[in-house]
């Protein structure tokens, strides 16, 4: 075996490691960069060919932003408002419904036919995996009867189909990792079960709740399949709006589209980066346990 000093070997591996990381960083970076610069372009700097660097091969303009905040403000803001309402309420609702069940599955023995607690929790997780395609037809028929088509309420409820099972699965594990003793002594002191859940278990499980809530928010904010099925004009969310714009003005008004797209991902990415440690925890936790 040829002898190489440890130092050379170390340097070689460093070069390799940083090479990979920088390469992947650039791959991630370029589409984001392209989105940002296109949001500040105009017809001159897009239609005659690609331009790459502001102030060098094109002059930045604010057309796209004029479009959003000018006369079209109401058209653009409606889907934003819908997305905020739908993702907040569906996440909160799923969290409420799901964490109760998660708590119960963590603390009391259940039997559902042949299934005990582990089986029930696994069933919830399995349910989350079903493709939306097998759910949309009955939901469409139900929604038509109930007048829920093209409403925010309809979307909020539809999003529980993946939200609730996810919360049950995740929160059961978080609750199981909490010590039982505190709760037991509170019960002896005369606290009710719901009181224990509200005053002791939920506050202790806060990191888990935050992680799950953020992941639900992101999922709902970006969801497309159910939105395209159940929303047409009034309840249109951002991804749907973006896609409709894309179909309408493909290749013509990219600066408008890019400004809208950029605006749509800013709030979620900004809050995501602030709460990054919760996301990482939630994602890896859910994935590994799942």
């Amino acid at each position, binding site marked *: 075996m040829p002898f190489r000093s440890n130092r050379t070997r170390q340097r070689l591996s460093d070069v390799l490691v940083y090479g*990979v990381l920088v390469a*992947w960083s650039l791959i991630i970076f370029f589409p984001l960069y392209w989105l940002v610069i296109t949001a500040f372009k105009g017809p001159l700097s897009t239609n005659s060919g690609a331009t790459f660097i502001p102030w060098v091969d094109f002059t930045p303009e604010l057309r796209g932003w004029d479009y959003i905040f000018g006369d079209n403000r109401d058209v653009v803001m409606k889907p934003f408002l819908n997305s905020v309402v739908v993702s907040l309420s569906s996440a909160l609702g799923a969290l409420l*419904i799901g964490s109760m069940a998660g708590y119960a599955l963590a603390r009391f023995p259940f039997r559902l036919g042949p299934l005990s607690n582990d089986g029930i929790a696994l069933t919830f997780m399995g349910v989350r995996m079903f493709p939306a395609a097998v759910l949309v*037809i009955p939901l469409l028929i139900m929604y038509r009867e109930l007048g829920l088509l093209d409403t925010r309420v309809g979307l909020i409820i539809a999003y529980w189909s993946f939200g609730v099972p996810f919360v049950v699965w995740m929160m059961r594990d978080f609750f199981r990792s909490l010590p039982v003793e505190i709760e037991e002594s509170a019960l002896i002191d005369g606290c009710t079960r719901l009181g224990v859940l509200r005053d002791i278990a939920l506050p202790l499980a806060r990191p888990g709740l935050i992680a799950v809530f953020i992941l639900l928010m992101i999922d709902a904010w970006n969801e497309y399949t159910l939105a395209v099925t159940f929303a047409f004009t009034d309840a249109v969310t951002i991804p749907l709006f973006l896609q409709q714009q894309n179909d309408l003005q493909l290749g013509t008004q990219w600066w408008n589209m890019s400004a809208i797209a950029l605006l749509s991902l800013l709030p979620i990415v900004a809050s995501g980066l602030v709460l990054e440690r919760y996301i990482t925890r939630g994602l890896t936790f859910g994935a*590994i346990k799942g």
Partner: protein
Amino acid sequence: MILPAVIATAGLVLYPLLFTLGVSFTNWHLFFPGVQFVGFETWSHTLQSDFLPQVARNTVVFVLGTVPAQYLCGLIVALALSNVKRGRAFFRVYFLVPLMISPVAVAYVMGSMMLNETVGPVNEVLRLLSLPRVPWLSDPNWAMFSLIMIDVWHWSSFMILVLLAGLQSLPQEIYDSAKVDGANSWQTFWTLTFPLLVPFSVTAILLRLISAFKVLDIIKVVTNGGPGRSTESLTMTVIDTGVRGGDLAYGAVMAYVLLVLMLTFSGIFMLVTRRWVTSAQGGEERRNAI
């Protein structure tokens, strides 16, 4: 406490699941009156059409094109990330960004803008290098390739995250003893790291496999199933023909074809990998025993 979650899940997932199966044995069409039970008629029509094999093939090609590539990218970057000494926190957070962006926005930036054949930057760079322009979206094979590329950009981050969590959970001592035994890093990877990582790899791949089968959003934005129907996925058929076109029975059959394909592939994958997972766990137990 568990009841609301059970009701939500049963009402939003399990009941629709059975209802869809029921619909597939009728001739239910939203725009034609009269629903009749027709037995396997809709099924045999659909299964004999030329269209089903094409859409099913598109979906499978997409899955087999994206998931292994995502795993490979994810593994390489995660390995680099676990060996990095400075800046790990930065890279980890930065690589999280794609996961927070909606697929529609990603598809718009990369598909509609960057891969635009006349004024997109990718073809512009190829032109500067005096290479021929690539028909990214107008050629059926290239269009599928473009979609796969976009999905790989978007979801490799998920693999990175899960595999990095796996790598960081591996005990340091075994690496020290491997070093004492004189193993080089290539040998260490194949005899220690990779086998120990199997449970994480299997879960991450399984989750991506299931999601990839459901693909709709990026196809809708980038190619809308075209050129022709060369990139149409099963979910897209269910939504466009089944729901939007009103042909519920046909959509129900297609949805079940998707479900069966998805279950078959993930079932085979789980069967094939189960041996490795248990042997990895066995190895862990042996190590703990020592």
